[in-house]
């Protein structure tokens, strides 16, 4: 359960990026956060994975006050999440396998366990045959699927995605969204920031509308 209570966020200057944002997301829910550019979508997502701290407000995930976690313990929160970005954020000098495996190496896993889980994650995103390729030899759609594989390989409870289809054409965007849907059907909470109305209309689910840092409404489709 993700609970936000009266989140305010101000950067330098007088403008509020987020103003009194409160909402809940139930476990296993698939939620789109949408709004025009500058509405605070990315800021909200960054607060969810503690890249940023809000100026005011409370954030509780599974009854744990996330804002009180000390910096040197943030890794515990991050391990329960998988995060996907518009620019993929892959290690281009390492193979597809190593890019996905890094999420398991930091857990102290080795050898056979890593190979099995990485293979399964890549199979889910249909990239098992390209395990040893470098990301630079993959298409944009394939690179994003590697990023998704990395996000899901350690079975996180929550997937956060910030404009994951921003660099992709419509066909690829639909493929990626289908993947997220598949992941969600297995019980993972999925939260996606996007301004793509086509995708939202097609895939439905729960939608949170932001405008100038405020929650306009939350809809359930």
């Amino acid at each position, binding site marked *: 359960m993700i609970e936000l209570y009266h989140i305010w966020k101000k950067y330098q200057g007088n403008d509020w990026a987020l103003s009194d944002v409160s909402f809940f997301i139930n476990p296993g829910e698939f939620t789109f956060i949408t709004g025009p550019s500058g509405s605070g979508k990315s800021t909200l997502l960054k607060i969810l*994975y503690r890249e940023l701290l809000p100026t005011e407000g409370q954030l509780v995930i599974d009854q744990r006050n996330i804002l009180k976690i000390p*910096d*040197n313990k*943030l*890794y*515990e*929160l*991050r*391990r329960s*999440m998988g*995060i996907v970005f518009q620019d993929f*954020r*892959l*290690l281009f000098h390492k193979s597809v396998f190593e890019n996905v495996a*890094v*999420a398991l190496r*930091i*857990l102290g896993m080795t050898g056979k366990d890593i190979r099995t889980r990485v293979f399964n994650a890549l199979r889910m995103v249909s990239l098992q045959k390209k395990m040893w390729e470098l990301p630079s030899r993959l298409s944009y759609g394939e690179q994003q699927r590697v990023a998704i594989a*990395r996000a899901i390989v350690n079975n996180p409870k929550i997937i956060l995605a910030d404009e994951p289809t921003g660099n992709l054409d419509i066909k690829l965007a639909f493929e990626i969204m289908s993947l997220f849907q598949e992941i969600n059907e297995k019980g993972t909470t999925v939260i996606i920031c996007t301004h793509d109305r086509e995708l939202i209309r097609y895939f439905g689910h729960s939608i949170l509308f932001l405008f100038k840092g405020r929650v306009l409404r939350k809809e359930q489709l």
Partner: protein
Amino acid sequence: MIICLTFLTLGIFLALSNNIKFLTRSVSDDQVIVFFLSETSSMETVAAIQKEMEDSRLFSRIRLVNREEALAAFKTKFPDLESVLQNLNRNPFPSSLEATFSRDSLNTAAGRDLVERMRTREGISDIQYNREWIERMRTFDRLIRAVGFFLGGILIFASFFIISNVIKLNVLARKNEIAILRLVGATNWFIRIPFVMEGVFLGLLGGVLAVFLLWLVTALFPLYLGSSPGVIGELIQFRFLSVSQILALLVSGSLIGFLGSFSSLSKFLKI
């Protein structure tokens, strides 16, 4: 390179210090005092002097060295100079009384008083007491070490900052990778370890190179001096560092590397 130079500098001064100590010990013993007897001293005068020394209870050992024994000792210690003696018609070495101060009486007022009394005593032509010379050598040794540690200390600071900056550049180059590691939940230590190990390796490598270069110098310098240094060759045998000194240099290098990289990560990455 700077780390290598740092420990090479320290190593050179330590080796110099080792050599000064060895030279001091090999030339003289600060507990021994030699009373050279006049050529005209009678047996009774010599016996009286010896008794006076024994009665003072300042010496653990007193030995009479006659002229022939003195000549033989010189020939043994400086074989290259034997040819010089052959040109002399007579034995130039006087008899002497070699006395070893006991530990309790070394550097006491009673010892100094006796030495001063003996300088003007009938039957004694000269006194050789190397303690002053040894004190000067020890002072020189302390000076060498102080200069070495001062220069080494400055270079250690320089090494620390250089390693710190090298690590900072590496961190910058791997900024994206570090960001990804943080996002997937790597602990601070997981991120730190490769950089810290790199720093330790750089420091250790610098230390190893410095020890090797110093060994090279120690091994090659006598060759540079030549095969017949004569008396000097008897006195000067270039001594390398002891095992504990080598270990200290290597551990110090590793430590500087560790501290430099750790400090850089703490400030730059805030981890």
